[in-house]
């Protein structure tokens, strides 16, 4: 008996949200300006680090600029794409999380597999085994 009740409640719930409007936010002048200023800073620092050869360690510079890129992507998604957990009843956020998971798997998987393929199938390596 409980199944139809939950079903009806679900439908009602969805309906209430539906009439609350498209659920898409346009942002304000303030949010655009904050996003823009943050982006300028987050773009300028990595370029400065690389062009000015500021740090001695290249590896450290690499990690820092990747970190800045990750932060800037989040800034863009929040301030320019106006992403939040409420828009379209949370479906945009679900799609984004799903995409991020697939992207992480595809990127890290490709790099990992191809790196090992390269490292283990060097012609030089084969020749030694054949001997």
């Amino acid at each position, binding site marked *: 008996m409980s199944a139809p009740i939950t079903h009806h409640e679900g439908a009602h719930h969805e309906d209430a949200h539906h009439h609350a409007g498209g659920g*898409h936010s346009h942002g304000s002048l303030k949010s655009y300006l904050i996003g*823009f200023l943050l982006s300028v800073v987050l*773009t300028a620092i990595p370029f400065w680090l690389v062009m000015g050869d500021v740090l001695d360690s*290249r590896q450290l510079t690499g990690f820092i600029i990747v970190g800045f890129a990750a932060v800037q992507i989040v800034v863009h998604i929040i301030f320019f*794409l106006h992403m939040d957990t409420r828009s379209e009843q949370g479906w945009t956020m679900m799609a984004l999380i799903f995409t991020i998971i*697939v992207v992480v798997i*595809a990127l890290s998987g490709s790099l990992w597999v191809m790196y090992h393929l390269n490292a283990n199938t060097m012609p030089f390596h084969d020749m030694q085994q054949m001997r």
Partner: protein
Amino acid sequence: MSATTRTMDGAEAPVFYLTEDHHHEEGSGTLLGFWLYLMSDCLIFACLFAIYGVLGTSYAAGPAPKDLFDLPLVAVNTAMLLFSSITYGFAMLEMVKSNGRATLVWLGITGLFGLAFLGIELYEFHHLIHIGATPQRSAFLSSFFTLVGTHGLHVTFGIIWLVTLMVQVGRFGLIEANKRRLMCLSMFWHFLDVIWIGVFTFVYLLGVLR
């Protein structure tokens, strides 16, 4: 609500489907659908980034990123795209205020920044091909041209779309359909800027560091 009460009482047979069709306004699913398109586009770029990540160091005894990339030019290019993002934001704010003329002006400025970005990118590509760093030269250059070229192609289509919408807004004003289209292009445009963050970080900055 009444249906639920009756079901709880057990006086009426349970209903397993929606008894009334709920009303969908025209285009109410467009923004979510467009977001899903952008997510699938994101997967295309993820694949291209993965290819660049794998092949980006295969120079085939040819030029490396350090010999080719001109970082000041890339910085200017990045600024162009960032400016175009904020001016598109201003266009959206004017659109919300139903100020058609100002929307058109900001859209026009956005288009000019977009064109500047494309111009600089084409200049860079022309320069690279001129000095012999063509896509055929090495796997690194093939993957570089594919990744950055795909992004540039997206910007090109974004500009075509932008001009189309400017004509639409100019002829029909800020009607509901045009607002919806402008919001889709807004997502597209900002999405391209997000992809560019990945490009300038992983391709140009990390490439020169290597």
